[in-house]
């Protein structure tokens, strides 16, 4: 992000960047940046809090009026109030995850669990007017089956032109997570990201299936499969200690802990 600011400013466009990791901004030295004390993924703060977001946006834009640069790095003073857990939140009621820890057992549970959340997901979509499911282009009823095929050691063909089977698997996994996280937040309470991610990764059949899938694919002969499985399926805080953690570089790929 700071590099983008540098390039655009060199070509005559004034910029101000939001900074989520201050030491990286201090190193890259963009023309102007506002550091914000929010978790990665929330550059403008809490969802559903327009007054708070407005203060962040305006604090950043006001740096454009400061004369004492380059470099200007401002600090936003307030934490994201939505990082706190909501004790009133109750996760969706789902059957306990599973005795059968075979690949076919994981796949069957995943397939059975997805429809159980359909009502909550419809409620989410109706209330928010949107869903962020859609990267894979597959309907949700097919996503479980596609992930299940991979779980059981098969590499199903990609039904979407332009997506390799492995790329489609990554997007299907992203869609699966989005569907669950939206369904999990469908009730009127305001769960923190930590509450939602803990629920997904620690209690659902989908979370268990993705953790099992990661484990299985890391034994692949293909370096590309191992790269995708190791880095892009399960966030490091939820990788079992018995599995090998993997991280690759990149400005937005630092270690991440969801909120409280």
């Amino acid at each position, binding site marked *: 992000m700071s590099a983008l600011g540098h390039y655009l*400013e060199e070509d*005559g466009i004034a910029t101000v960047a939001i900074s989520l990791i201050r030491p990286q901004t201090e190193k890259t030295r963009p023309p102007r940046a506002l550091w914000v004390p929010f978790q990665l993924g929330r550059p403008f703060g809490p*969802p559903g809090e327009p007054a708070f977001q407005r203060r962040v946006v305006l604090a950043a834009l006001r740096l454009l009026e400061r004369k004492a640069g380059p470099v200007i790095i401002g600090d936003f003073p307030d934490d994201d109030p939505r990082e706190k857990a909501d004790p009133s939140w109750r996760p969706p009621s789902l059957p306990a995850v599973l005795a059968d820890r075979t690949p076919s057992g994981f796949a069957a549970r995943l397939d059975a669990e997805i429809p159980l959340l359909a009502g909550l997901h419809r409620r989410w979509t109706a209330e928010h007017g949107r869903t962020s499911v859609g990267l894979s282009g597959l309907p949700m009823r097919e996503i479980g089956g596609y992930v299940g095929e991979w779980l059981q050691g098969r590499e199903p063909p990609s039904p979407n032109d332009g997506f390799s089977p492995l790329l489609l698997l990554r997007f299907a996994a992203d869609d699966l997570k*989005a569907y669950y996280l939206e369904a999990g937040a469908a009730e009127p309470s305001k769960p923190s990201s930590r509450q939602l991610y803990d629920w997904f990764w620690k209690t659902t059949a989908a979370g268990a299936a993705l953790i099992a899938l990661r484990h299985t694919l890391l034994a692949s002969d293909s370096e590309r499969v191992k790269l995708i499985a190791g880095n892009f399926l399960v966030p490091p805080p939820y990788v079992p200690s018995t599995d090998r953690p993997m991280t690759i570089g990149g400005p937005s790929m630092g270690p991440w802990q969801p909120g409280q």
Partner: protein
Amino acid sequence: MVRLADLPPAQAQRLAAFDCPNFATEPWVTGPPLSQRRVAIVSSAGLLVRGGMPFRGRDPDYHTIPPGTRPDDLLISHVSINFDRTGFQEDWNVVFPIDRLNELAAEGTIGSVADVHYSFMGAAEPDLIEPHARELAGRLKQDKVSAVLLAPV
């Protein structure tokens, strides 16, 4: 929150030691008061309009977010899984604060909001992004944009 003091020491050390580009110059563009600025958002969240081709791997190019894009149209295809997505799911302004910019323009705090906004994917290599960023600068000038709000995830 991403305060290094709040993270486990090993994580904090890794973040602080992260390899970042080191530029020889410090460009600086001034401009009119905020009330006369035309503002565009340039995200690095790997945003795309539904139906488009998501960012793959570390694609260094950018997507456009055209006028009339609705909240249900916008998806995140950033390759990283190491950031929160639930905030964006609930409210696109967490990542793409277009409603806030439109409000600021309506009340006259900023001059106007650009018609088109843009997204890169932040895991791309900075030197590979550079030609695309410079091409984007030309498009921004054509749209008379005088301020860019850069939004990472």
